[in-house]
């Protein structure tokens, strides 16, 4: 069969010559290879201190955005939950009461917004489906845990903070998606 690359070698069962049967030259060649690697530059990335650079389109942990006045963008329309191929998102909607205008941008909001991170496949379809600019995938790597119930991320874990310092920057994500879509 024609090989796809030119790297394949034809294997033969030919009888080994006397020097080959001594194995010593082969062993020395092997020792040379390992000692060469001994002095080579190491490829290890020491994870907590150093991190590998992510691609521009990296999809990590979710965030629920607020608008400029600190009101939650999400209106609990449920499009993200419908779009989700892994069925990881569950939403309980509620009507906004009087006096809550500073908390929620529109008349309806998500009382509960759970993402099961064990189901989530980080495809980013929820983000694409969202008409209200509410959900985004950040570049943060979602953490590991010891218990299964810790992987259901509730709303208080997902919504970004009101203060400027607590806001999560997703501007690269916005441009990234647009370029990626085109």
């Amino acid at each position: 069969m024609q090989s796809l690359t030119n790297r394949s070698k034809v294997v033969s069962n030919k009888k080994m010559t006397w020097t080959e049967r001594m194995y010593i030259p082969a062993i020395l060649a092997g020792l040379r290879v390992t000692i060469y690697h001994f002095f080579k530059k190491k490829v290890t990335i020491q994870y907590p201190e150093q991190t590998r650079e992510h691609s521009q389109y990296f999809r990590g942990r979710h965030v629920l955005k607020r608008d400029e006045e600190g009101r939650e963008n999400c209106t609990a329309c449920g499009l993200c939950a419908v779009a989700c191929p892994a069925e990881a998102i569950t939403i309980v909607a509620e009507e906004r009461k009087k006096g809550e205008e500073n908390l929620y941008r529109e008349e309806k909001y998500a009382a509960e917004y759970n993402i099961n991170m064990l189901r989530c496949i980080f495809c980013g379809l929820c983000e694409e489906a969202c008409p209200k600019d509410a959900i985004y995938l950040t570049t943060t790597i979602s953490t590991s845990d010891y218990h299964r119930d810790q992987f259901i991320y509730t709303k208080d874990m997902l919504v970004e903070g009101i203060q400027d310092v607590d806001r999560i920057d997703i501007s690269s994500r916005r441009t990234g998606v647009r370029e990626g879509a085109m």
Partner: protein
Amino acid sequence: MELIIFKICLVLVLFLLSITIAAYSTFSERKVAAFMQDRIGPNRAGPFGLLQPLADGIKMIMKEEIMPADSNKLLFILGPAISMITALMTSAVIPWGPDITIGGEKVQLQVADINVGILYIMGVLSLGVYGIMIGGWASNNKFALLGAVRASTQMISYELAMGMSIVAIIMTTGSLSLGNMVEGQNGWHGMGWNIFLQPLGFLIFLICAFAETNRTPFDLPESETELVGGYHTEYSSMKLGFYLFAEYINMFLSSAVITCLYFGGYNFPFMDMVQANTHEVLFALICVGVFLAKIIFFIFFFMWVRWTIPRFRFDQLMNLGWKVLLPLSIVNMLITGAVILYNQ
């Protein structure tokens, strides 16, 4: 009296040295493995990970001690104990440096200069397999038993070739005492090493040393891929630690014996000029340092080979031992004898 105190001190120092070197061998084994695989290896415990052996030791001691219900309790405990004792016993006859004078008396840097030192080493080495045998047998486990049987078969097969290559060395040096053997190699300004006289013998001895210490490519007794853990499958906690420790101490002492027999022990190039110009004690310390450096190189070599060569199959191991090494070592002995006879 002074002599006895000095010897006791020497024994203590040797004991601590063996333990320390074995502990740091476990660490450097992991480091060497990592470096040869383009990794960094353990580096979190202390600076450069140097406290790793300590952490490993504490872990070993704190682990739960499990004894198989159907095992023979006495033999189960005896196994690792014998391994450890025989491993530590070997260091008694190794000459660590030249003689020094303490209080007007000439003292050897050697615990016991018995006149059959090399035979003593061979004897203790073959005792070492009892620890493995008994441990594997007492575990009442098929993997452990298979490992133990492999260990003893291997030991018997390779001890013959090893003995024959040693006979050739004894013929050239004319002595059974390790002290005399090392002293005899100080010709040519400290470069009269036996390796130049016995290259073939050295190769055979080296291969046999790998087999005797159960190191790759001869690590069949504990081959993880086939026998789970081999003879120490059922062992846990510090008993397992003793087995692993014994292996590393054996490696250290095999390196020492190889150095003594073939690489001139504490002899180094131009040592006679250094001796003439330095104080006696300082010179002895330099010699000990040189000896240790050679040993450390051989320990590194053991590890280097481990991460290069894959394991033998059992029939290949037997073929190599009986059909290649044994005839070769006999031929080597005959050639040595003929050359000695011709030169007389």
